[in-house]
């Protein structure tokens, strides 16, 4: 029996999630999800900042910003910005500037050991996660007013 378009779509999207067998696959999934989150957030942010033209509308906007649901959305936003940014820098370094690639390419990626598992690339990957998590924690504290800088 032929699959419907919806079934094909569900199968393709679920393909992003399985199998999460390693940290690289997790980075791929998170890059997609954070990218989608940011792409949806961006138009909303542009519309919401447009309210800054009117002080009354802006005051109402700030009441909305204080709601727990928006705060949760902002914490996810902080992680999305930092993870998508740091992982994007990592991808640019590796794919565009050839950082962490071996000087001599192996004859076959499938026969020899997987390039992406080399130490240099793994370090970049772990750094992406560590920096994103640390900055998300700091950003969340700042957002909640628990971290006042000066």
């Amino acid at each position, binding site marked *: 029996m032929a699959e419907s378009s919806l079934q094909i*779509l569900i199968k393709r999207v679920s393909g992003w999630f399985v199998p999460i067998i390693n940290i690289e696959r997790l980075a791929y999934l998170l890059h997609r999800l954070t990218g989608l989150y940011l792409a949806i957030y*961006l138009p909303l942010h*542009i519309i919401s900042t447009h309210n*800054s033209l009117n002080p009354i509308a802006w005051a109402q906007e700030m009441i909305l910003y204080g709601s727990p649901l928006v705060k949760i959305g902002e914490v996810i936003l902080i992680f999305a910005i930092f993870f998508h*940014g740091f992982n*994007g820098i990592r991808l640019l370094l590796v794919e*565009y500037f050839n950082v962490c690639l071996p000087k001599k390419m192996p004859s076959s990626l499938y026969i020899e050991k997987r390039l992406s598992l080399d130490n240099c690339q793994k370090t970049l990957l772990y750094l992406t996660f560590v920096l994103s998590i640390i900055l998300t924690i700091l950003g969340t504290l700042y957002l909640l*007013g628990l971290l006042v800088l000066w």
Partner: protein
Amino acid sequence: MNMRYSSIMKWQYWTAIILIVVLTIHIAFRIIPGDYEKSLSYENVRSNYSNIGYSIILLILLAAALFHGFNGLRVIIYELSPRAGKIAGPILLVLGVIFVVIGLLTLLGIYIFPFH
């Protein structure tokens, strides 16, 4: 067609590099007041927009983020369904232009609607 696609993807990388710089400045402007709520006060936001240099940064951020975000969305839709991706392309382009105009009006608002 391939040439055009490759050129769009090159811009995807270039806007990524631009975004790293301008988004860092944008975040810095939220951090400089030292307090998140203070940074979002009406006076502070309006004074940010009155800074010509920062407004230019915001304009670059607006265009780069919309291109990078909407093109990324188009690529994901295309990968899931090439037919839907072809339809989504022009729709996202029009939406992108509309949001650039809205953002531009916000930035120019300081000159059109001075402090209340």
